[in-house]
């Protein structure tokens, strides 16, 4: 009797540890998605000086394109390869047809333009794909779970973790080591100076917006097997992206990555003890950041 009780308690403690470990891994995986989104948002915010309100809609389109291509070609990998580029096309369209025309106006109008675009894209999702959500299974070789020694964990999430870490590394290399990346960094630092140096700023803007759109679309595609598809997915993720950017500090790319992971982790860890508070905790985090460090964790301005 006593022994049975003891083992049960022991079992409870053990399963608690396992729960915490798997929630940390879950948090890292969603955190990576947030990081991808937030880096795109930060780039656009830094270089073009506008908060991209259409970022959530681009993310949603990335997911729906992935779903469409994956069900058409029956290859998830092909879908992940192609879908983000379709989102880039939408991004190019938004930048060249709208945002660029509004540089002369107050920057509030660019923001409002992007908000209008987000509304339209949001409704187009319902018009094209209907108000009911879908789910997409991970590809066969990433289906099921793998034994990590301590816990058994879904293969797809591990692949997602590794893949997004690689994408972030590649992005880091691109931004810090290539000439184009240097222009982007200079654009964030001082936009006027870039123009003075004889670089076509319109092309830089187009490229930045395209890169941001690519990252949003990629995050959307990668998210589909774990989060599913709903028409409101873009609306739901947008405020989270902004929280990440505020916590990171406007304009800091490494900050956006770290803050993205932090936000993902804090959400998943809160789920263990207080599932209802999962969505509120990130705003508490934001509030604390504003009180203790108004410029954000990594912001200098």
């Amino acid at each position, binding site marked *: 009797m006593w022994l049975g009780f003891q083992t049960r308690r022991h079992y409870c403690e053990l399963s608690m540890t396992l729960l915490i470990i798997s929630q940390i891994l879950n948090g890292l995986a969603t955190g990576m998605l947030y990081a991808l989104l937030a880096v795109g948002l930060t780039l656009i*915010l830094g270089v073009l*000086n*506008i*908060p991209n309100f259409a970022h959530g809609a681009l993310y949603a389109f990335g997911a729906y394109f992935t779903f469409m291509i994956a069900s058409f070609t029956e290859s998830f990998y092909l879908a992940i390869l192609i879908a983000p580029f379709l989102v880039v096309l939408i991004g190019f369209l938004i930048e060249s047809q*709208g945002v660029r*025309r*509004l540089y002369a*106006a107050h*920057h*509030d*109008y660019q*923001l*409002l*333009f992007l*908000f*209008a*675009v987000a*509304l*339209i894209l*949001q*409704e*187009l999702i*319902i*018009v094209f794909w209907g108000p009911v959500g879908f789910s997409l299974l991970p590809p066969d070789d990433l289906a099921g779970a793998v034994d990590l020694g301590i816990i058994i964990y879904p293969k797809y999430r591990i692949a997602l973790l590794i893949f997004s870490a690689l994408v972030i590394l590649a992005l880091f290399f691109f931004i810090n080591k290539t000439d184009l990346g240097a222009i982007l960094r200079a654009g964030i630092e001082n936009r006027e100076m870039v123009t003075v140096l004889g670089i076509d700023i319109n092309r830089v803007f187009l490229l930045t917006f395209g890169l941001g759109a690519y990252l949003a679309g990629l995050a959307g595609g990668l998210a589909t097997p774990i989060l599913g598809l709903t028409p409101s997915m873009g*609306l739901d993720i947008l*405020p989270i992206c*902004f*929280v990440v*950017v*505020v916590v990171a500090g*406007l304009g800091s790319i490494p900050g956006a990555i770290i803050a993205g992971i932090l936000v993902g982790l804090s959400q998943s860890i809160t789920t263990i003890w207080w599932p*209802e*508070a999962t*969505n*509120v905790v990130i*705003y*508490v985090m*934001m*509030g604390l950041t*504003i*009180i203790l460090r*108004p410029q954000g964790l990594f912001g200098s301005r």
Partner: protein
Amino acid sequence: MRNTYLLLICFGFVLIGPFVLPPTTAAEMLIFGIIAVSTNIMVGYTGLLSFGQASFFGIGAYACGLMLKAGVPLLLAIPAGTGLALLIAGMVGYFCVKRTGLYFICLTFAFNQMFYFIAYVWTGVTGGEDGLPGIPRPDLISDPVSFYVFIAVLFFICLLAMLRIIHSPLGLAFRLIRENPSRAAAVGYNVRLFKWFSFIIASAFTGLAGTVYAMLYSIVPIDQIHWLKSGDFIFMLLFGGTGNFFGPLIGAVGYIWLSDTFAVIWARWPLLMGIVFLIVVLHLRGGVVELIGRAYRFAIRERAEATA
């Protein structure tokens, strides 16, 4: 003088409103009219673009709805709900006005979503996803027509109060801050303090509109506190015209017509709203007011050419 004429026109519209439209729809237009004009104090006159005004609308609505359900008299519930919205706007505003520009927008937007999730999670009090139903209306204003009269009186009180604020030295300080914040600071104005005042005043009126909204359909749906609603408020301002005190009223009427009347014909009405929004941002930044102005000038020119 011009304002007197425009007020009389408003009065005329409020009088014929319930004969042309269902009184409930007309009342909703007036409620959103208060919101549009008050948000314009902040967005149009002070130059603070906020994407979080639905927070205060929702807080006012939930607070008043809960109090009415608990049997608190109306004359206490409305000021108390408005007071709560004002208090919370004071706290949120304190943090938001510390930052300017993009940061300010991001903050208002994120705070809005925080209040949404609080309402979403706190099911015991707010009803969560189902909204807060069963809000009673006092006997005196229980039928649609008397409720409309009540809203109309409130509407004019708010309109006159806001007109007074805009034409006071405080309103001038708001405009100064919009036009040139650094000069305002140089002349000795505490820019942050005045931005905070503007934020609080706008939010308090929005909260007041929320308190009476709770009684309109006897329910507070949760999407009234969602950040998309804040976007809708901005749509109303922009569509009507931010440059004019009365302009946003046109936007409120247009928005309620779209969401109440047109929504029955076509469920995807936000698509139309988005497209109108897009056209206004790209080609008609002064909104309907500018359109009227252009048409007026065009008519004058035509007549001048005809006589010449």
